[in-house]
């Protein structure tokens, strides 16, 4: 049986490197997450609470930027190469974007990790949202820019591959996996403009001392212009695996290729003009604009509803091919012993539950209740931490053998690992959701206050803490099992991969849909119009009210915090002026 690595050995090497980079980040992110779960719940505290935010920054950046994006460029490279049946135009260009991404990630990691030592002033304890006027070391911003440029080059590489393919296949429809990669990259190009402007025009010059002040609301709004579509950037490769690989693993094929295309087009159109829903409680943005993004956000549910139908229908078709019968009896005919199938199926289940919690977040007036509470990381951990991460791990059990040529070290450990992740996430996130509903905040080292006590509707704070600590521990163990399995697989040379990498065509193929769906220019233009409608007036208002560089806002480099915390205990009740005198 010929596998991917035999047909495309050089491409497989790039994909392997992207995966290994991703797994290194997962290792760091998992250790940091474990420390946090035990620290915030006051079970075990191995760090000072002031260092918690260094750990939190590392967990956020290494998980959602490095782990997920390195893994997804690997998946996308595989998808483009295998579905177009050709490699990149020039493999040196492919290596160059991998190199730029790696350099960027290293430069970001240096100031974050330097936050642990007092030997240097360098620090980047600004969390992955880096809200100004908290200020990180310039290396942090430079690294982020390089990392994003690396992903832009990767997208260019895939577009080049497609254009050369098109010359040879003038009348063919874009193969579905490549269609998904290209549409996702269009969304990514459009949305990263926001963070690029935020960093290049404001935050980087400001951290270098070239400008004195920034407008915190403007840089925050530009961040969220990027900050919501980035979620779909993580999610789309998971969708790609659900649409293309999961039906095959279930023993069948994709139900509808046309609807899959419609779903990805809807994501180009609606992913970006919704970012202000993260800012429902921000002053400086008029209520009408918030209402517009609320409606856009609700319509963004549509592609996910369609996905639920198509993916479940495909799985059911597969089960019936395997002899499954009855209304629900077919569920028993599915390959539950396959870690790739079970991992993706459980990820999808968690995703559909988490989607409903997202509707709560999106419901403008309900948002008052949950904004910045523990509910929000609950939502993130079901969606990114499970729908995406668990799908990636399950996908790795199927893809890594194909790009290494080695057999997966242990299928049974893999199966145990994906189930363990599911159990861990159920414990951890249900406590996060419930804690959020009674007002426990996110992003804090010690949600234990002096002046009042939280009153859970059911259960107790101790029980919620125990669930978070237990869930976090199970997730950490699961991550370690995954990484160990991958390490053993990498060295499992001489074995046969025993994975059938071929993907069957859809039941309803691309010929059932109009060709206009493949007109990427049209959808890009429409997306830009929707963004102009959603963003031009709020941005103009913010700049008009507060100025491009803000109303004289001082910078707060994060390394000053250590000093201010030390004096904090003694000056807590002193007038404002004397505190500021001490810390600046």
């Amino acid at each position, binding site marked *: 049986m010929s596998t991917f690595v035999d047909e495309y050995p050089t491409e497989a090497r790039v994909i392997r490197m992207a995966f290994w980079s991703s797994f290194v980040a997962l290792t760091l992110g998992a250790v940091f997450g474990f420390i946090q779960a035990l620290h915030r719940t006051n079970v075990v505290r191995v760090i000072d609470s002031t260092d918690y935010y260094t750990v939190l920054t590392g967990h956020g950046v290494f998980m959602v930027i490095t782990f997920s994006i390195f893994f997804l460029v690997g998946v996308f490279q595989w998808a483009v190469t295998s579905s177009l049946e050709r490699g990149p135009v020039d493999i040196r260009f492919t290596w160059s974007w991998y190199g730029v991404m790696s350099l960027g990630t290293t430069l970001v990691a240096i100031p974050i990790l330097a936050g642990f030592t007092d030997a240097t002033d360098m620090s980047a304890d600004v969390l992955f949202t880096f809200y100004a006027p908290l200020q990180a070391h310039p290396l942090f911003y430079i690294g982020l820019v390089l990392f994003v440029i690396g992903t832009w080059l990767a997208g260019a590489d895939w577009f080049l591959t497609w254009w050369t393919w098109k010359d040879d296949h003038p009348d063919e429809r874009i193969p579905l996996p490549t269609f998904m990669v290209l549409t996702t990259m269009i969304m990514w190009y459009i949305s990263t403009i926001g963070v690029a402007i935020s960093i290049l025009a404001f935050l980087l010059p400001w951290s270098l001392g070239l400008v004195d002040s920034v407008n915190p609301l403007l840089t925050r709004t530009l961040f969220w212009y990027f900050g919501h579509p980035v979620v779909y950037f993580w999610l789309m490769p998971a969708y790609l695996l659900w649409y293309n690989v999961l039906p095959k693993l279930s023993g069948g094929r994709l139900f509808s290729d046309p609807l899959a295309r419609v779903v990805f087009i809807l994501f180009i159109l609606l992913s970006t003009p919704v970012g202000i829903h993260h800012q429902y409680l921000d*002053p400086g943005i008029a209520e009408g604009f918030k209402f517009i993004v609320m409606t856009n956000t609700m319509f963004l549910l549509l592609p996910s509803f369609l996905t639920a139908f198509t993916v479940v229908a495909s799985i059911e078709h597969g089960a019936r091919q395997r002899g499954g019968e009855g209304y629900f009896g077919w569920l028993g005919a599915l390959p539950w012993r396959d870690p790739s199938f079970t991992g993706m199926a459980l990820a999808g289940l968690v995703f559909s539950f988490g989607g409903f919690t997202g509707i709560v977040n999106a419901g403008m007036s309900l948002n008052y209740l949950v904004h910045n509470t523990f509910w929000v990381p609950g939502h993130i951990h079901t969606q990114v931490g499970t729908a995406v991460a668990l799908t990636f791990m399950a996908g790795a059990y199927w893809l890594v053998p194909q790009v290494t040529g080695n057999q997966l070290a242990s299928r049974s450990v893999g199966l145990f690992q994906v189930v363990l992740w599911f159990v861990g996430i159920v414990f951890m996130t249900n406590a996060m959701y419930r804690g959020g509903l009674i007002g426990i905040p996110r992003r804090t080292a010690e949600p234990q206050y002096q002046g*009042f006590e939280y009153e859970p509707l059911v259960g107790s704070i101790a029980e919620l803490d125990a669930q978070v600590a237990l869930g976090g521990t199970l997730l950490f163990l699961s991550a370690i099992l995954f990484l160990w399995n991958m390490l053993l697989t990498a060295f499992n040379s001489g074995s046969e991969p025993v994975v059938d990498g071929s993907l069957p065509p859809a039941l309803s193929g691309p010929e059932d849909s*109009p060709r206009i769906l493949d007109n990427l220019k049209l959808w890009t233009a429409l997306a830009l119009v929707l963004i102009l409608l959603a963003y031009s007036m709020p941005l103009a208002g913010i700049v008009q009210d507060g100025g491009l560089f803000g109303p004289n806002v001082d910078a707060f480099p994060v390394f000053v915090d250590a000093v201010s915390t030390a004096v*904090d205990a003694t000056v*807590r009740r002193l007038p404002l002026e004397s505190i500021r005198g001490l810390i600046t």
Partner: protein
Amino acid sequence: MRIHTYEKLWLVGALVLIVGFIATVTYGSVGLGISMIDDSGGTLSPNAVDDDGRFAEPRVEQVGENEYEAYVVASQFIFQPDPIEVPANSTVTFYVTSADVIHGFSVVGTNVNTMAIPGEVARLTVEFDEPAEYGLICHEYCGAGHHTMEGQLIVLPEDEYEPGGNA
């Protein structure tokens, strides 16, 4: 375009659900009058907070029979005034700003919740019925001492309330 009948039904059902969600949120805004934090508070440089007539002395001020205005400054890692005291059966309009970095302003166990962004003034109006003591916390990471940033909001019985008592 060929779409399976079941899939068409599902599509219609999903759209109905989405429109239903939008309708309930719209009812919350228009029918129940839950308005969003907006741009009506205006802008203010964090460096001008100490010289601003409203925020130089953070306080609660009576502006009508049962109407009050509260001027609150969030800064690393305190709220001023602290505690914030208001009478029961009153309508209080909060003006919240930050003197340094982005903070949160969240009255625990209620939906009184806003961001405090340097350069901006958040304005929100709240009705207090019963006497109660609430915790007030910062829910946005604001520096290494973030977890110590808390205050109190006390709703006093009307006969125990002294205007300006906590200036």
